[in-house]
């Protein structure tokens, strides 16, 4: 499983992943339809904003925020936890392990290879956002802003990926991590800024939210996209995000290695 073989295989794996994404495009449409929660929340908050702005959010700000949330969800989604627990249950993980490339790398490329198709979905939504909310509230307006957003979305992708690996690997310890994934989704929906901007939390709860990883998976990239923070605050939050990336990276890889040892024990 040397680095060189992995690197040599990488372009091919991405190509296969992309072809698969194209082959199963119907599935992707279903997925996109399933992640329309930000649009529902947009309708809801628009109803709220009709009576006057909430904090710094008026109608246009809400439009920009939730359309950005939709885009971020498309680009950072990961279904590795589900794949892993499925493959553990079916035992097909064993076949993946026979290949000279780490299964995690294979999962990662599979998720990444779908991104071009997802961008095709995101672009029109972005267009609508630009038209309905105005450029100021839809996208970063300076190159520096785009840079911060890029950092934020890569960090968000990595946190989501590592959390997925962690959850999926736990299915090697627990009989099924299905329940755990449910709890994760609940926490993600409420705490990440997916259903409402995190600044709507009361002060005490906000401190807790700042310490949890979820906010950095969704809220932060969305805020960077809609230009909610000044540079200094943005860098502080990005620092916290990348601290989570590093921490989760180490923990999830360690748990994965130990879990694999257990998996080998299954099949004898």
């Amino acid at each position, binding site marked *: 499983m040397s680095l060189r073989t992995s690197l040599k295989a990488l372009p091919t794996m991405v190509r296969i992943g992309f072809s698969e994404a194209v082959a199963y495009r119907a599935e992707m449409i279903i997925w996109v*339809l399933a992640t329309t929660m930000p*649009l529902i929340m947009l309708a809801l908050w628009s*109803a709220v904003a009709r009576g006057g702005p909430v904090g710094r959010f008026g109608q246009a700000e809400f439009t920009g925020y939730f359309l950005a949330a939709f885009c971020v969800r498309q680009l950072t989604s990961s279904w590795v936890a589900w794949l892993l627990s499925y493959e553990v249950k079916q035992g097909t993980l064993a076949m993946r392990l026979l290949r000279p490339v780490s299964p995690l790398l294979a999962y990662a490329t599979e998720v990444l290879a779908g991104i071009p198709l997802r961008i095709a979905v995101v672009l029109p939504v972005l267009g609508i956002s630009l038209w309905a909310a105005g450029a100021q509230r839809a996208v970063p307006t300076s190159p520096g802003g785009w840079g911060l957003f890029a950092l934020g979305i890569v960090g968000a992708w990595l946190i989501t990926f590592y959390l997925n690996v962690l959850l999926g690997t736990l299915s090697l310890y627990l009989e099924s991590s299905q329940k755990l994934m449910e709890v994760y989704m*609940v926490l993600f*929906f409420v705490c990440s800024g997916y259903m409402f901007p995190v600044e709507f939390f009361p002060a005490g709860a906000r401190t807790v939210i700042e310490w949890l990883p979820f906010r950095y998976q969704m809220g932060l990239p969305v805020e960077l996209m809609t230009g909610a923070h000044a540079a200094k605050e943005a860098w502080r939050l990005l620092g916290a995000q990348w601290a989570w990336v590093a921490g989760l990276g180490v923990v999830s890889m360690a748990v994965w290695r130990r879990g694999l040892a257990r998996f080998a024990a299954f099949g004898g």
Partner: protein
Amino acid sequence: MNAKRYLRLLGVQLKASGLLALQYRADFLAEGLTSLAWTFTALAPLFVVFNARPSIEGWTFQESLLVVGWFTLLQGVLEGAISPSLTGMVEHIRKGTLDFVLLKPADAQFLVSTQRFLPWRAVNVLSGVGLFVYAFVSLGRWPSLPGIFASLVLLATSMLILYSMWILVVSAAFFVVKVDNLTYLFTSIFDAARWPSAVFRGSLAWVFTFIIPLALMTTFPALALLGRLPWTWLVGAVVGAVAFASVARWVWLMSIRHYTSASS
């Protein structure tokens, strides 16, 4: 093919699921905890929204709580009685074992919809009822008897619609091969039902009333409990639900005909 035989069949299937559930008593606790967690998620945005405004589109916090209550209750019905067997159906299609079901001398839709129940999910129904009680206590009044009766009728129509929507989604499984996301799709559509339908405007309102009748499932019963539902709406709901169910049945029959078994 008489009704009595089908009732007996349903009894047998229910009993089998009940015995299976009793084997995993620890699940009761897990179900209870997840159900509470989900109820809380349904409430968290509600608190946040009503923190910003005392009432939204004519709905106060307590009144919206009734909608969430119906949502939670129906979620229990959905996850306890509808999804488990139909998830099994998707599995049947994928593995090609649906042939065995189709060969049996009973209606295939009936068989696949009753193959499995998760009785512990009834916890959700209890949390829903708990929300009703809390909401009415803080409103300081109780629903009228006709109101309760109307909401019970609507509960039946909601379950019928929910079931038919699920049948429609599963029928899609015949055409889309990789169907793992279908359940997820369904839950996320249903999710919009946790809000009073008045907040949806324009095309979204139209979709949620006529195409995917979410308004009918949670907002109408809440209105009935509050005594604000016009009788004409109740009649409309019953007619609409029956029409929707017939469409679903028709689509199901079409899909079955379209289905070429694993061996052919």
